[in-house]
């Protein structure tokens, strides 16, 4: 009985405490692990220093994120502030689901909008407004398995980069040699999920002068550059077998894959592997070393009941001090943070020098993948087209032209 009373008392106390907070903000994210712990810590700090506001962190896995948030918005249960990934930005912008931060946040001198390179904000612009603050601006880098390179006697990517010879021809040669000498796969460019093909593939396409779209958003998958890039991938899959074919589930973490392209945050998954690894810049192609910049941003949802308070909380998260703290997991586009030595030595798994070469030096030539609101449909067409492309006897040019015909018909 006494216990029940105690529990009741505790409940009442909690109730009273939360009743004092007039405003409950909900912050939506797909973060996990230490990154999530940091966000929860930040929410607590903010709630503690703002007596009227209480911030609750809500987590939805990345794969379900746009769906779940859309359903929350539709059912009048929208979060106030949250993360938004680059792939979902056009749809949320087109539906007017976000709050314009230009008159509030971007006009604030403390925020210092000039600290963000103008190109980093392109994704978030619509008309004269800016609807989000990118907090993660992460170029894809090349993860490589040092043990497999040593075993095959191939100079590792960082050494080849220092010599100025690290291009896609060298990449292919290294992958093929490793496959031949060790039996392990040489390189994985695509993710396991075929629908996420663009991550990895885009960097190769761009470095060869190709891409998904040209400047006028016409399909460029059948341009000469794109065809050459796909030829490289096709050869590695079907001639030498150094690249896994679609459907193969072998990941870099297994130690049976010499190279893999992903964001720096992927390093968190390599904490427990039993092989030595490093990160290097992506290889160079005929049109340069152009890697993909993955972006995610903080946004205020238009259906929020407290847009003003939500924007204030966003200003806290996007401030220089806080971004310097989150940078360890999510490298921000803030120039002041990236150039700070404290940031470069913040990841215990990666030496500062590698991080500088692979990440910071690549940022200037990296591109954000800009899409239209039609992208989900275009991606569907392309994913299904790539199933026909990655067949042993495929006619690449013909398949790619057919994909482009369908993609352009969507516009």
């Amino acid at each position, binding site marked *: 009985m006494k216990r029940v009373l105690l529990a009741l008392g505790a409940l009442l106390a909690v109730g009273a405490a939360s009743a004092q907070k007039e405003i409950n903000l909900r912050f939506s994210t797909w973060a996990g692990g230490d990154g999530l712990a940091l966000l929860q810590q930040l929410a607590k700090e903010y709630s503690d220093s703002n007596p009227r506001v209480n911030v609750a962190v809500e987590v939805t896995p990345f794969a379900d994120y746009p769906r779940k948030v859309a359903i929350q918005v539709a059912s009048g249960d929208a979060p106030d502030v949250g993360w938004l990934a680059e792939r979902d930005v056009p749809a949320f912008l087109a539906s007017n689901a976000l709050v314009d931060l230009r008159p509030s946040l971007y006009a604030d001198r403390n925020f210092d909008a000039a600290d963000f390179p103008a190109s980093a904000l392109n994704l978030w612009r619509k008309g004269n407004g800016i609807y989000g603050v990118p907090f993660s601006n992460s170029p894809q880098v090349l993860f490589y398995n040092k043990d497999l390179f040593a075993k095959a006697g191939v100079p590792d990517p960082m050494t080849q980069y220092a010599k100025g010879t690290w291009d896609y021809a060298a990449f292919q040669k290294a992958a093929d040699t490793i496959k031949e000498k060790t039996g392990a796969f040489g390189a994985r460019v695509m993710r396991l999920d075929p629908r996420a093909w663009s991550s990895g593939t885009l960097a190769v396409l761009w470095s060869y002068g190709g891409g998904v779209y040209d400047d006028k958003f016409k399909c460029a998958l059948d341009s000469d550059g794109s065809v050459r890039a796909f030829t490289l991938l096709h050869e590695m899959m079907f001639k030498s077998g150094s690249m896994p074919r679609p459907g193969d589930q072998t990941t870099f973490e297994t130690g049976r894959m010499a190279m893999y392209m992903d964001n720096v945050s992927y390093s968190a998954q390599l904490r427990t592997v039993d092989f030595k690894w490093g990160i290097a810049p992506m290889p160079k192609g005929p049109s340069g070393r152009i890697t993909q910049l993955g972006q995610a941003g903080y946004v205020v949802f238009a259906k929020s009941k407290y847009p003003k308070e939500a924007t204030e909380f966003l200003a806290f998260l996007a401030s220089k001090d806080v971004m310097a703290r989150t940078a360890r997991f999510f490298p921000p586009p803030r120039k002041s943070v990236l150039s700070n030595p404290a940031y470069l030595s913040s990841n215990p798994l990666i030496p500062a020098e590698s991080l500088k070469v692979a990440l910071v030096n690549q940022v200037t030539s990296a591109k954000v993948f800009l899409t239209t609101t039609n992208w989900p449909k275009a991606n569907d067409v392309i994913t299904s087209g790539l199933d*026909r492309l*990655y067949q042993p006897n495929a006619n690449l040019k013909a398949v790619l032209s057919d994909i482009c015909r369908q993609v352009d018909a969507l516009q």
Partner: protein
Amino acid sequence: MQLRRQEQLTGLLFALPYALGMLVLVILPLAAVWVISGTRWSLLDEPRWVGLNNYQRLFQDPGFYRSLGVTALFTIGILVLNISSALGLAVLLNQKLRGIGIFRTIIFSPVVMPVVAWALVWKFLLQPEGPINQMLAAAGTQGPNWLFEPSLALWLLVVIEVIKAVGLNAVIFLSALQGVPKEMHEAAVLDGTTPVQTFFRITLPLISPTVFLVFIVTLIGALKLFTPVFVLTGGGPAEATTTLILFMYKQGFSFFEFGYASAVAVVLFVVVLGLTVLQWNLRRRLVFYES
């Protein structure tokens, strides 16, 4: 009189929780799908009424017809393979052999396995350089990239689904077979029939009500099958496994066109309802009832 009314009232009160649950969780959502199918709605914005536009668009959408074709092939494949192998297995399991219980357990065990786990195991086995292809390579032949071969993927899904589901149908058939009176078989044997004749002339007609039930349940199940397809192929390769239900999912949850997706759902509902009514009417002619 008053007592009767009171009893009626009590009865109604007892039925009320179920009726309310049915109304809120089944009937209202069902009706809502019909209403939403007349709108344009991305979930993020407000729904806009567009009348029958979604249906007009649907009946001009080549993707819809393609998925209708895929659904037909898939459903026929599952019906033929599932029912024939369930019946065959049931006949085998009906033998009075020592240790037959073990075989019954083995055949039924995939039924109780979680469907996502089942699909993931197959996805692993069927990788281009996975266990199955490694075995084939050891035997000297090169296996295809099973799930990424447009001409193969759909049939593979049929086989994987039937292996998972056949146990349940086999058990239903088994109990029906055991309900067939022994003296009928004895009489037939005395009349000089072969075992094949006995099966087709005596057993099958006697279990036809069960065959009918299994047919309807399997048909509806095949039309609505989503999870294994989604996990194994996601509708690919090159749309070869995009059934109607995957097509609907894609319109809603990938393209955020909930009005259009609801129109697909309504069409699927009408198709399933139509097929069921048709079978119900054919039942009188095809099914033998003892009474």
